[in-house]
Protein backbone atom coordinates (compact mmCIF):
# COMPACT_ATOMS: atom_id res chain seq x y z
CA UNK A 1 0.00 0.00 0.00
CA UNK A 2 1.37 3.40 -0.86
CA UNK A 3 0.03 6.92 -1.11
CA UNK A 4 -0.14 8.40 -4.61
CA UNK A 5 -0.90 11.90 -5.84
CA UNK A 6 -4.66 11.31 -5.97
CA UNK A 7 -4.76 10.08 -2.37
CA UNK A 8 -2.51 12.93 -1.25
CA UNK A 9 -4.76 15.52 -2.85
CA UNK A 10 -7.79 13.98 -1.17
CA UNK A 11 -6.04 13.96 2.21
CA UNK A 12 -5.07 17.58 1.84
CA UNK A 13 -8.67 18.53 1.05
CA UNK A 14 -9.89 16.63 4.11
CA UNK A 15 -7.23 18.23 6.31
CA UNK A 16 -7.80 21.74 4.98
CA UNK A 17 -4.20 22.03 3.79
CA UNK A 18 -2.73 23.10 0.46
CA UNK A 19 0.77 23.60 -0.92
CA UNK A 20 1.92 27.21 -0.55
CA UNK A 21 5.32 27.10 -2.23
CA UNK A 22 5.48 28.04 -5.89
CA UNK A 23 7.12 24.81 -6.97
CA UNK A 24 4.24 22.56 -5.95
CA UNK A 25 5.43 19.51 -7.88
CA UNK A 26 8.72 19.38 -5.95
CA UNK A 27 6.87 19.86 -2.68
CA UNK A 28 4.40 17.18 -3.65
CA UNK A 29 7.19 14.71 -4.54
CA UNK A 30 8.84 15.32 -1.17
CA UNK A 31 5.55 15.00 0.68
CA UNK A 32 4.78 11.70 -1.03
CA UNK A 33 8.23 10.31 -0.28
CA UNK A 34 7.99 11.24 3.39
CA UNK A 35 4.44 9.99 3.79
CA UNK A 36 5.25 6.65 2.19
CA UNK A 37 8.28 6.22 4.40
CA UNK A 38 6.09 6.82 7.44
CA UNK A 39 3.63 4.33 6.03
CA UNK A 40 6.37 1.66 5.79
CA UNK A 41 7.17 2.25 9.43
CA UNK A 42 3.51 1.95 10.32
CA UNK A 43 3.02 -1.19 8.24
CA UNK A 44 5.44 -3.06 10.51
CA UNK A 45 2.34 -3.49 12.69
CA UNK A 46 1.18 -6.15 10.26
CA UNK A 47 3.72 -8.57 11.74
CA UNK A 48 1.39 -8.93 14.72
CA UNK A 49 -1.75 -11.07 14.65
CA UNK A 50 -4.46 -8.95 16.26
CA UNK A 51 -7.42 -11.14 15.37
CA UNK A 52 -10.09 -10.93 18.06
CA UNK A 53 -8.24 -8.31 20.11
CA UNK A 54 -10.42 -5.57 21.56
CA UNK A 55 -9.22 -2.14 20.32
CA UNK A 56 -7.93 0.15 23.04
CA UNK A 57 -8.68 3.83 22.63
CA UNK A 58 -7.27 4.97 25.89
CA UNK A 59 -4.82 3.72 28.53
CA UNK A 60 -7.33 4.15 31.31
CA UNK A 61 -10.48 2.22 31.98
CA UNK A 62 -12.39 5.20 33.32
CA UNK A 63 -15.90 6.52 33.09
CA UNK A 64 -16.54 10.15 32.16
CA UNK A 65 -17.07 11.88 35.49
CA UNK A 66 -20.10 14.17 35.64
CA UNK A 67 -20.52 17.37 37.58
CA UNK A 68 -23.55 18.65 39.39
CA UNK A 69 -26.19 20.06 37.04
CA UNK A 70 -25.84 23.55 38.42
CA UNK A 71 -25.47 26.78 36.47
CA UNK A 72 -21.90 28.05 36.69
CA UNK A 73 -20.29 31.17 35.31
CA UNK A 74 -18.03 30.40 32.42
CA UNK A 75 -15.01 32.34 31.21
CA UNK A 76 -15.06 36.07 30.60
CA UNK A 77 -16.16 36.49 26.96
CA UNK A 78 -14.23 39.71 26.48
CA UNK A 79 -11.04 38.09 27.72
CA UNK A 80 -11.59 35.07 25.50
CA UNK A 81 -12.20 37.12 22.37
CA UNK A 82 -9.40 39.58 22.99
CA UNK A 83 -7.02 38.06 20.43
CA UNK A 84 -9.61 37.40 17.73
CA UNK A 85 -8.49 38.19 14.16
CA UNK A 86 -11.74 39.97 13.28
CA UNK A 87 -14.62 40.69 15.58
CA UNK A 88 -17.92 42.53 15.23
CA UNK A 89 -20.39 42.77 18.12
CA UNK A 90 -18.95 39.62 19.68
CA UNK A 91 -19.13 37.64 16.43
CA UNK A 92 -16.08 36.36 14.59
CA UNK A 93 -16.29 37.70 11.06
CA UNK A 94 -15.29 35.58 8.09
CA UNK A 95 -15.86 35.71 4.32
CA UNK A 96 -19.45 34.89 3.35
CA UNK A 97 -20.09 31.21 4.04
CA UNK A 98 -23.20 30.65 1.97
CA UNK A 99 -22.81 31.70 -1.65
CA UNK A 100 -25.54 32.14 -4.27
CA UNK A 101 -23.66 30.04 -6.85
CA UNK A 102 -21.48 27.72 -4.82
CA UNK A 103 -18.43 26.30 -6.63
CA UNK A 104 -18.30 23.30 -4.27
Amino acid at each position, binding site marked *: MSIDVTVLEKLMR*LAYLAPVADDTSQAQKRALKNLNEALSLIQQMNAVD*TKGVEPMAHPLD*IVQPLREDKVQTSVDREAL*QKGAPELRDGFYTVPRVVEEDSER
Partner: protein
Amino acid sequence: MSEIPSSLSALSRYLATSKISSVELTETFLSRIREYDSRYNSFITVTEESARSAAKEADSIRARGNNVPALCGIPIAHKDLFCTRGVNTTCASRMLEGYVPPFDATVVERLKTHGAVMLGKTNMDEFAMGSSNEHSAFGAVRNPWDTDRVPGGSSGGSAAALAAGLCAAATATDTGGSARQPAALCGLTALKPSYGRISRYGMIAFASSLDQASTLTRSAEDAAWLLSAMAGSDERDSTCVDVPVDDYRAALNNPSAMRLGVVNDWLDADQASATAIEDALLVLEKAGHKITRIDLPRVALGISAYYVLACAECASNLARYDGVRYGYRCQDARSIEDLMVRSRSESLGAEVQRRILIGTFVLSSGYYDAYYRKAQQLRRLICEEFKKAFEDVDILIGATTTGVAFRLGEKSASPTEMYREDLYTIPANLAGLPAMSVPVGMSSGLPLGMHLVAPYLEEGRLLALANQFQQVSDWHTRTPAIS
Protein backbone atom coordinates in the same frame (compact mmCIF):
# COMPACT_ATOMS: atom_id res chain seq x y z
CA MET B 1 28.54 29.76 37.28
CA SER B 2 27.98 27.74 40.44
CA GLU B 3 27.84 30.15 43.35
CA ILE B 4 24.32 28.97 44.02
CA PRO B 5 23.36 25.36 44.75
CA SER B 6 21.60 23.43 42.04
CA SER B 7 19.23 21.17 43.98
CA LEU B 8 15.75 22.43 44.83
CA SER B 9 16.11 21.33 48.45
CA ALA B 10 19.41 23.20 48.84
CA LEU B 11 17.98 26.28 47.12
CA SER B 12 15.02 26.16 49.43
CA ARG B 13 17.36 25.97 52.45
CA TYR B 14 19.40 28.93 51.17
CA LEU B 15 16.18 30.92 50.81
CA ALA B 16 14.90 29.79 54.21
CA THR B 17 18.14 30.77 55.96
CA SER B 18 18.34 34.09 54.09
CA LYS B 19 21.62 33.18 52.42
CA ILE B 20 19.95 34.52 49.29
CA SER B 21 16.62 36.17 48.55
CA SER B 22 14.29 35.09 45.79
CA VAL B 23 14.80 38.49 44.18
CA GLU B 24 18.58 37.90 44.08
CA LEU B 25 18.14 34.32 42.90
CA THR B 26 15.70 35.34 40.18
CA GLU B 27 17.97 38.17 39.07
CA THR B 28 20.88 35.71 38.83
CA PHE B 29 18.92 33.46 36.50
CA LEU B 30 17.59 36.39 34.46
CA SER B 31 21.09 37.73 33.92
CA ARG B 32 22.34 34.26 32.95
CA ILE B 33 19.55 34.05 30.40
CA ARG B 34 20.48 37.47 29.02
CA GLU B 35 24.14 36.56 28.84
CA TYR B 36 24.03 33.00 27.55
CA ASP B 37 20.74 32.13 25.92
CA SER B 38 21.65 33.57 22.53
CA ARG B 39 23.86 30.50 22.21
CA TYR B 40 21.06 28.03 22.90
CA ASN B 41 17.84 29.79 21.92
CA SER B 42 16.11 27.90 24.74
CA PHE B 43 13.58 30.63 25.64
CA ILE B 44 10.85 31.99 23.37
CA THR B 45 9.55 34.46 25.97
CA VAL B 46 11.38 35.72 29.05
CA THR B 47 9.02 37.28 31.59
CA GLU B 48 11.49 39.55 33.40
CA GLU B 49 9.04 41.95 35.03
CA SER B 50 6.55 39.41 36.30
CA ALA B 51 9.42 37.19 37.49
CA ARG B 52 10.78 40.07 39.54
CA SER B 53 7.41 40.85 41.12
CA ALA B 54 6.72 37.16 41.80
CA ALA B 55 10.14 36.91 43.46
CA LYS B 56 9.42 39.98 45.57
CA GLU B 57 6.09 38.48 46.60
CA ALA B 58 7.81 35.18 47.46
CA ASP B 59 10.29 37.03 49.69
CA SER B 60 7.39 38.74 51.53
CA ILE B 61 5.62 35.44 52.04
CA ARG B 62 8.83 33.98 53.46
CA ALA B 63 9.29 37.03 55.71
CA ARG B 64 5.78 36.60 57.10
CA GLY B 65 6.84 33.08 58.03
CA ASN B 66 3.64 31.05 58.17
CA ASN B 67 2.65 28.51 55.54
CA VAL B 68 5.67 29.00 53.31
CA PRO B 69 4.96 26.82 50.28
CA ALA B 70 7.52 24.20 49.26
CA LEU B 71 8.79 25.90 46.10
CA CYS B 72 8.54 29.45 47.45
CA GLY B 73 10.72 31.76 45.40
CA ILE B 74 12.30 29.11 43.21
CA PRO B 75 12.73 30.20 39.56
CA ILE B 76 11.52 27.73 36.97
CA ALA B 77 10.75 27.72 33.26
CA HIS B 78 7.58 26.46 31.56
CA LYS B 79 7.49 24.72 28.20
CA ASP B 80 5.66 27.02 25.79
CA LEU B 81 2.83 24.51 25.49
CA PHE B 82 1.32 25.38 28.86
CA CYS B 83 -1.17 28.22 28.75
CA THR B 84 -0.04 31.17 30.86
CA ARG B 85 -2.49 33.96 31.53
CA GLY B 86 -1.39 37.21 29.93
CA VAL B 87 1.83 35.69 28.58
CA ASN B 88 2.41 34.61 24.96
CA THR B 89 1.89 30.91 24.45
CA THR B 90 3.03 29.84 21.01
CA CYS B 91 3.74 26.08 20.97
CA ALA B 92 6.67 27.27 18.81
CA SER B 93 4.23 27.74 15.93
CA ARG B 94 3.43 30.68 13.63
CA MET B 95 -0.19 29.64 14.08
CA LEU B 96 -0.09 30.75 17.73
CA GLU B 97 2.46 33.55 17.44
CA GLY B 98 1.06 36.36 19.52
CA TYR B 99 -1.59 34.17 21.15
CA VAL B 100 -2.14 35.28 24.73
CA PRO B 101 -4.24 32.86 26.79
CA PRO B 102 -6.79 34.31 29.23
CA PHE B 103 -6.10 31.54 31.71
CA ASP B 104 -3.35 29.48 33.34
CA ALA B 105 -2.93 25.77 32.78
CA THR B 106 -3.51 23.73 35.95
CA VAL B 107 0.21 22.87 35.99
CA VAL B 108 1.12 26.57 35.89
CA GLU B 109 -1.51 27.42 38.51
CA ARG B 110 -0.33 24.71 40.88
CA LEU B 111 3.34 25.60 40.63
CA LYS B 112 2.40 29.23 41.21
CA THR B 113 0.41 28.24 44.31
CA HIS B 114 3.47 26.37 45.53
CA GLY B 115 5.47 29.57 45.20
CA ALA B 116 7.50 28.93 42.05
CA VAL B 117 8.64 31.98 40.08
CA MET B 118 8.21 31.74 36.30
CA LEU B 119 11.24 32.98 34.34
CA GLY B 120 9.64 32.47 30.95
CA LYS B 121 8.41 30.06 28.26
CA THR B 122 10.77 27.65 26.65
CA ASN B 123 11.30 26.71 23.02
CA MET B 124 10.08 23.36 21.71
CA ASP B 125 9.33 21.41 18.56
CA GLU B 126 6.18 22.87 17.05
CA PHE B 127 3.05 21.52 18.75
CA ALA B 128 5.27 18.97 20.53
CA MET B 129 6.02 17.11 17.31
CA GLY B 130 9.67 16.31 17.06
CA SER B 131 12.73 14.83 18.75
CA SER B 132 15.37 17.47 18.15
CA ASN B 133 13.80 20.91 18.66
CA GLU B 134 14.72 21.72 15.05
CA HIS B 135 11.04 22.05 14.12
CA SER B 136 10.39 25.36 15.84
CA ALA B 137 9.09 28.47 14.10
CA PHE B 138 11.44 30.41 16.40
CA GLY B 139 14.65 28.66 15.47
CA ALA B 140 16.37 25.48 16.58
CA VAL B 141 17.60 25.01 20.12
CA ARG B 142 21.23 24.03 20.69
CA ASN B 143 22.59 21.56 23.19
CA PRO B 144 24.69 23.27 25.89
CA TRP B 145 27.04 20.25 25.88
CA ASP B 146 27.89 20.93 22.22
CA THR B 147 26.12 23.73 20.39
CA ASP B 148 26.48 21.97 17.03
CA ARG B 149 24.16 19.31 18.40
CA VAL B 150 20.50 19.07 19.22
CA PRO B 151 19.16 19.03 22.79
CA GLY B 152 16.47 16.53 21.83
CA GLY B 153 12.77 17.26 21.61
CA SER B 154 10.12 18.20 21.77
CA SER B 155 11.01 19.71 25.19
CA GLY B 156 14.41 20.83 23.89
CA GLY B 157 14.14 24.38 25.21
CA SER B 158 13.34 23.29 28.77
CA ALA B 159 16.19 20.75 28.65
CA ALA B 160 18.75 23.19 27.24
CA ALA B 161 17.76 25.93 29.68
CA LEU B 162 18.15 23.63 32.67
CA ALA B 163 21.36 22.03 31.44
CA ALA B 164 22.88 25.48 30.91
CA GLY B 165 21.88 26.60 34.39
CA LEU B 166 19.34 29.18 33.17
CA CYS B 167 16.63 27.94 35.57
CA ALA B 168 16.37 25.69 38.65
CA ALA B 169 13.90 23.26 37.08
CA ALA B 170 11.53 23.18 34.12
CA THR B 171 8.22 21.73 33.06
CA ALA B 172 8.01 19.61 29.94
CA THR B 173 5.53 17.32 28.25
CA ASP B 174 5.94 13.78 27.00
CA THR B 175 3.76 12.15 24.36
CA GLY B 176 6.25 9.66 22.91
CA GLY B 177 9.40 10.59 24.79
CA SER B 178 9.49 14.37 24.55
CA ALA B 179 10.75 14.87 28.12
CA ARG B 180 12.81 11.70 28.57
CA GLN B 181 14.77 11.85 25.32
CA PRO B 182 15.93 15.49 25.77
CA ALA B 183 16.81 14.63 29.38
CA ALA B 184 19.01 11.78 28.12
CA LEU B 185 20.72 14.02 25.54
CA CYS B 186 21.28 16.85 28.02
CA GLY B 187 22.29 14.92 31.15
CA LEU B 188 19.10 15.60 33.09
CA THR B 189 16.46 13.65 35.02
CA ALA B 190 12.99 13.46 33.49
CA LEU B 191 9.85 11.99 34.96
CA LYS B 192 6.80 11.27 32.83
CA PRO B 193 4.13 10.28 35.32
CA SER B 194 1.29 7.81 34.77
CA TYR B 195 -1.33 8.99 32.32
CA GLY B 196 -3.90 10.96 34.26
CA ARG B 197 -1.60 11.74 37.20
CA ILE B 198 -1.26 15.39 36.20
CA SER B 199 -4.07 17.51 34.77
CA ARG B 200 -3.90 18.38 31.08
CA TYR B 201 -6.16 21.43 31.49
CA GLY B 202 -4.45 24.29 29.68
CA MET B 203 -1.83 21.98 28.18
CA ILE B 204 -2.21 22.50 24.46
CA ALA B 205 -3.15 19.13 23.02
CA PHE B 206 -1.14 17.06 20.57
CA ALA B 207 -2.38 13.49 21.24
CA SER B 208 -4.93 13.39 24.01
CA SER B 209 -4.55 9.75 25.03
CA LEU B 210 -0.75 10.00 25.13
CA ASP B 211 0.17 13.52 26.32
CA GLN B 212 1.34 13.96 29.88
CA ALA B 213 3.02 16.85 31.69
CA SER B 214 6.48 15.93 32.91
CA THR B 215 9.29 17.27 35.07
CA LEU B 216 12.82 18.15 34.00
CA THR B 217 15.18 18.44 36.94
CA ARG B 218 18.76 17.79 37.99
CA SER B 219 17.84 14.84 40.17
CA ALA B 220 15.17 12.36 41.17
CA GLU B 221 14.84 14.22 44.46
CA ASP B 222 13.99 17.42 42.60
CA ALA B 223 11.55 15.49 40.41
CA ALA B 224 9.74 14.36 43.56
CA TRP B 225 9.50 18.00 44.71
CA LEU B 226 7.98 19.15 41.42
CA LEU B 227 5.70 16.16 40.98
CA SER B 228 4.25 16.70 44.46
CA ALA B 229 3.23 20.20 43.42
CA MET B 230 1.87 19.26 40.00
CA ALA B 231 0.00 16.00 40.58
CA GLY B 232 -3.58 15.52 41.64
CA SER B 233 -7.16 15.38 40.41
CA ASP B 234 -8.73 18.27 38.53
CA GLU B 235 -12.39 18.43 37.61
CA ARG B 236 -11.47 20.52 34.56
CA ASP B 237 -9.71 17.50 33.01
CA SER B 238 -11.90 14.43 32.89
CA THR B 239 -8.91 12.20 32.09
CA CYS B 240 -7.14 13.28 35.26
CA VAL B 241 -7.59 10.46 37.74
CA ASP B 242 -9.15 11.09 41.10
CA VAL B 243 -6.62 9.09 43.10
CA PRO B 244 -4.75 10.42 46.14
CA VAL B 245 -1.27 11.77 45.46
CA ASP B 246 1.52 9.71 47.05
CA ASP B 247 4.09 11.38 49.25
CA TYR B 248 6.79 11.35 46.59
CA ARG B 249 9.43 12.96 48.78
CA ALA B 250 8.93 10.26 51.42
CA ALA B 251 9.13 7.62 48.67
CA LEU B 252 12.72 8.68 47.94
CA ASN B 253 13.98 6.72 50.96
CA ASN B 254 15.99 3.60 50.18
CA PRO B 255 13.83 1.15 48.32
CA SER B 256 13.64 -2.48 49.29
CA ALA B 257 15.30 -4.98 46.97
CA MET B 258 13.68 -4.88 43.56
CA ARG B 259 13.53 -7.22 40.60
CA LEU B 260 14.82 -5.21 37.65
CA GLY B 261 13.92 -6.42 34.17
CA VAL B 262 16.40 -5.40 31.49
CA VAL B 263 14.57 -5.28 28.17
CA ASN B 264 17.00 -6.77 25.65
CA ASP B 265 15.74 -4.65 22.75
CA TRP B 266 16.31 -1.52 24.82
CA LEU B 267 20.05 -2.23 24.86
CA ASP B 268 20.21 -2.25 21.07
CA ALA B 269 21.97 1.08 21.11
CA ASP B 270 25.47 2.30 20.40
CA GLN B 271 28.32 0.64 22.29
CA ALA B 272 28.75 3.46 24.78
CA SER B 273 25.07 3.37 25.83
CA ALA B 274 25.01 -0.40 26.22
CA THR B 275 28.22 -0.33 28.28
CA ALA B 276 26.95 2.51 30.47
CA ILE B 277 23.74 0.61 31.19
CA GLU B 278 25.64 -2.59 32.02
CA ASP B 279 27.86 -0.61 34.40
CA ALA B 280 24.77 0.87 36.05
CA LEU B 281 23.26 -2.60 36.40
CA LEU B 282 26.35 -3.71 38.32
CA VAL B 283 25.91 -0.73 40.63
CA LEU B 284 22.26 -1.59 41.16
CA GLU B 285 23.04 -5.24 41.75
CA LYS B 286 25.58 -4.25 44.38
CA ALA B 287 22.85 -2.16 46.00
CA GLY B 288 20.83 -5.35 46.46
CA HIS B 289 18.57 -5.49 43.41
CA LYS B 290 18.13 -8.57 41.24
CA ILE B 291 18.67 -8.29 37.47
CA THR B 292 16.84 -10.41 34.90
CA ARG B 293 16.79 -10.10 31.13
CA ILE B 294 13.51 -10.16 29.23
CA ASP B 295 12.10 -9.77 25.77
CA LEU B 296 9.04 -7.69 24.96
CA PRO B 297 8.32 -8.35 21.28
CA ARG B 298 5.00 -6.49 21.11
CA VAL B 299 6.46 -3.49 22.91
CA ALA B 300 9.16 -3.40 20.25
CA LEU B 301 6.50 -2.58 17.64
CA GLY B 302 5.08 0.26 19.68
CA ILE B 303 6.56 2.85 17.34
CA SER B 304 4.32 1.69 14.50
CA ALA B 305 1.14 1.85 16.56
CA TYR B 306 2.26 5.18 17.99
CA TYR B 307 2.61 6.92 14.64
CA VAL B 308 -0.88 5.82 13.71
CA LEU B 309 -2.53 6.86 16.98
CA ALA B 310 -0.55 10.02 17.71
CA CYS B 311 -1.03 11.29 14.16
CA ALA B 312 -4.72 10.43 14.17
CA GLU B 313 -5.23 12.26 17.45
CA CYS B 314 -3.18 15.23 16.30
CA ALA B 315 -5.15 15.51 13.06
CA SER B 316 -8.24 15.79 15.22
CA ASN B 317 -6.75 18.11 17.84
CA LEU B 318 -5.21 20.49 15.34
CA ALA B 319 -8.42 20.84 13.33
CA ARG B 320 -9.30 23.72 15.66
CA TYR B 321 -6.53 25.87 14.17
CA ASP B 322 -8.49 27.42 11.34
CA GLY B 323 -7.81 31.14 11.57
CA VAL B 324 -11.37 31.94 12.61
CA ARG B 325 -11.40 32.65 16.34
CA TYR B 326 -7.73 33.05 17.31
CA GLY B 327 -4.26 32.47 15.98
CA TYR B 328 -2.89 33.21 12.55
CA ARG B 329 -5.33 34.33 9.87
CA CYS B 330 -4.22 34.67 6.26
CA GLN B 331 -4.72 37.90 4.33
CA ASP B 332 -7.38 38.54 1.69
CA ALA B 333 -9.27 35.30 2.06
CA ARG B 334 -11.49 34.71 -0.96
CA SER B 335 -13.90 32.34 0.81
CA ILE B 336 -14.33 30.62 4.16
CA GLU B 337 -12.57 27.58 2.78
CA ASP B 338 -9.70 29.65 1.45
CA LEU B 339 -9.43 31.36 4.84
CA MET B 340 -9.13 28.07 6.69
CA VAL B 341 -6.88 26.32 4.16
CA ARG B 342 -4.43 29.19 3.79
CA SER B 343 -4.39 30.11 7.48
CA ARG B 344 -3.37 26.56 8.27
CA SER B 345 -1.05 25.99 5.33
CA GLU B 346 0.78 29.29 5.72
CA SER B 347 1.39 28.93 9.44
CA LEU B 348 1.74 25.25 10.34
CA GLY B 349 5.23 23.80 9.88
CA ALA B 350 6.17 20.91 7.59
CA GLU B 351 6.40 18.26 10.31
CA VAL B 352 3.04 19.27 11.77
CA GLN B 353 1.40 19.15 8.36
CA ARG B 354 2.99 15.78 7.67
CA ARG B 355 1.57 14.28 10.86
CA ILE B 356 -1.85 15.76 10.20
CA LEU B 357 -1.83 14.10 6.78
CA ILE B 358 -0.75 10.74 8.18
CA GLY B 359 -3.49 11.01 10.79
CA THR B 360 -6.05 11.94 8.16
CA PHE B 361 -4.99 8.96 6.09
CA VAL B 362 -5.28 6.36 8.86
CA LEU B 363 -8.69 7.68 9.82
CA SER B 364 -10.08 7.91 6.31
CA SER B 365 -12.68 5.43 5.13
CA GLY B 366 -11.14 2.42 3.48
CA TYR B 367 -8.05 2.60 5.66
CA TYR B 368 -9.52 3.00 9.14
CA ASP B 369 -9.62 -0.72 9.97
CA ALA B 370 -6.24 -1.58 8.51
CA TYR B 371 -4.48 1.22 10.32
CA TYR B 372 -6.33 2.97 13.14
CA ARG B 373 -8.23 -0.03 14.46
CA LYS B 374 -5.18 -2.27 14.06
CA ALA B 375 -3.04 0.19 16.00
CA GLN B 376 -5.59 0.28 18.82
CA GLN B 377 -5.50 -3.50 18.98
CA LEU B 378 -1.71 -3.51 19.08
CA ARG B 379 -1.94 -0.92 21.85
CA ARG B 380 -3.94 -3.35 23.96
CA LEU B 381 -1.46 -6.15 23.29
CA ILE B 382 1.39 -3.85 24.35
CA CYS B 383 -0.41 -2.96 27.58
CA GLU B 384 -0.97 -6.62 28.30
CA GLU B 385 2.67 -7.47 27.58
CA PHE B 386 3.76 -4.83 30.09
CA LYS B 387 1.25 -6.09 32.68
CA LYS B 388 2.51 -9.62 32.31
CA ALA B 389 6.15 -8.50 32.57
CA PHE B 390 5.35 -6.65 35.81
CA GLU B 391 4.17 -9.89 37.38
CA ASP B 392 7.83 -10.92 37.48
CA VAL B 393 9.72 -7.64 37.71
CA ASP B 394 9.24 -4.36 39.57
CA ILE B 395 10.91 -1.98 37.11
CA LEU B 396 11.89 -2.30 33.45
CA ILE B 397 15.26 -0.89 32.39
CA GLY B 398 17.12 -0.04 29.22
CA ALA B 399 18.77 2.81 27.37
CA THR B 400 16.59 5.88 26.85
CA THR B 401 17.87 6.47 23.32
CA THR B 402 19.98 4.64 20.76
CA GLY B 403 22.84 7.11 21.10
CA VAL B 404 24.07 10.54 22.12
CA ALA B 405 22.87 13.90 20.88
CA PHE B 406 23.21 14.09 17.10
CA ARG B 407 24.23 17.12 15.02
CA LEU B 408 21.71 19.65 13.79
CA GLY B 409 20.49 18.59 10.36
CA GLU B 410 21.85 15.07 10.74
CA LYS B 411 18.44 13.38 10.85
CA SER B 412 16.51 15.86 8.70
CA ALA B 413 16.76 13.88 5.47
CA SER B 414 14.28 11.28 6.60
CA PRO B 415 11.49 11.99 9.08
CA THR B 416 11.27 8.32 9.98
CA GLU B 417 14.94 8.33 10.98
CA MET B 418 14.02 11.06 13.45
CA TYR B 419 11.00 9.07 14.66
CA ARG B 420 13.34 6.26 15.75
CA GLU B 421 14.78 8.56 18.43
CA ASP B 422 11.73 7.60 20.48
CA LEU B 423 11.90 3.85 19.86
CA TYR B 424 12.33 2.97 23.56
CA THR B 425 10.31 5.75 25.12
CA ILE B 426 7.09 5.42 23.10
CA PRO B 427 5.66 2.22 24.64
CA ALA B 428 5.30 3.77 28.10
CA ASN B 429 3.04 6.45 26.59
CA LEU B 430 0.93 3.86 24.78
CA ALA B 431 0.40 1.99 28.03
CA GLY B 432 0.05 5.11 30.19
CA LEU B 433 2.86 3.95 32.47
CA PRO B 434 5.18 6.16 34.51
CA ALA B 435 8.75 6.35 33.23
CA MET B 436 11.98 8.20 33.93
CA SER B 437 15.27 8.93 32.27
CA VAL B 438 18.30 9.45 34.49
CA PRO B 439 21.89 10.28 33.50
CA VAL B 440 23.94 7.07 33.31
CA GLY B 441 27.20 7.95 31.61
CA MET B 442 29.04 10.05 29.09
CA SER B 443 30.38 9.28 25.62
CA SER B 444 32.84 11.65 23.93
CA GLY B 445 31.72 14.41 26.26
CA LEU B 446 28.00 13.86 25.63
CA PRO B 447 25.44 12.54 28.13
CA LEU B 448 23.68 9.16 28.04
CA GLY B 449 20.40 8.28 29.71
CA MET B 450 18.97 5.20 31.41
CA HIS B 451 15.26 4.51 30.98
CA LEU B 452 13.08 3.17 33.79
CA VAL B 453 9.43 2.10 33.49
CA ALA B 454 7.14 1.11 36.37
CA PRO B 455 3.55 -0.11 36.66
CA TYR B 456 0.66 2.33 36.64
CA LEU B 457 0.78 4.88 39.50
CA GLU B 458 4.11 3.55 40.80
CA GLU B 459 5.99 6.85 40.43
CA GLY B 460 7.21 6.39 44.01
CA ARG B 461 8.96 3.17 43.06
CA LEU B 462 10.71 4.85 40.12
CA LEU B 463 11.77 7.81 42.22
CA ALA B 464 13.13 5.53 44.95
CA LEU B 465 15.30 3.53 42.56
CA ALA B 466 16.47 6.59 40.63
CA ASN B 467 17.29 8.43 43.84
CA GLN B 468 19.23 5.46 45.18
CA PHE B 469 21.20 5.24 41.92
CA GLN B 470 21.97 8.94 42.18
CA GLN B 471 23.33 8.51 45.70
CA VAL B 472 25.91 5.96 44.50
CA SER B 473 26.78 7.61 41.18
CA ASP B 474 27.44 11.17 40.10
CA TRP B 475 26.46 11.32 36.42
CA HIS B 476 23.52 13.58 37.27
CA THR B 477 25.84 16.17 38.85
CA ARG B 478 27.82 16.75 35.66
CA THR B 479 27.18 20.04 33.91
CA PRO B 480 28.50 21.40 30.63
CA ALA B 481 31.28 23.99 30.82
CA ILE B 482 29.76 27.40 30.21
CA SER B 483 32.03 30.38 29.86
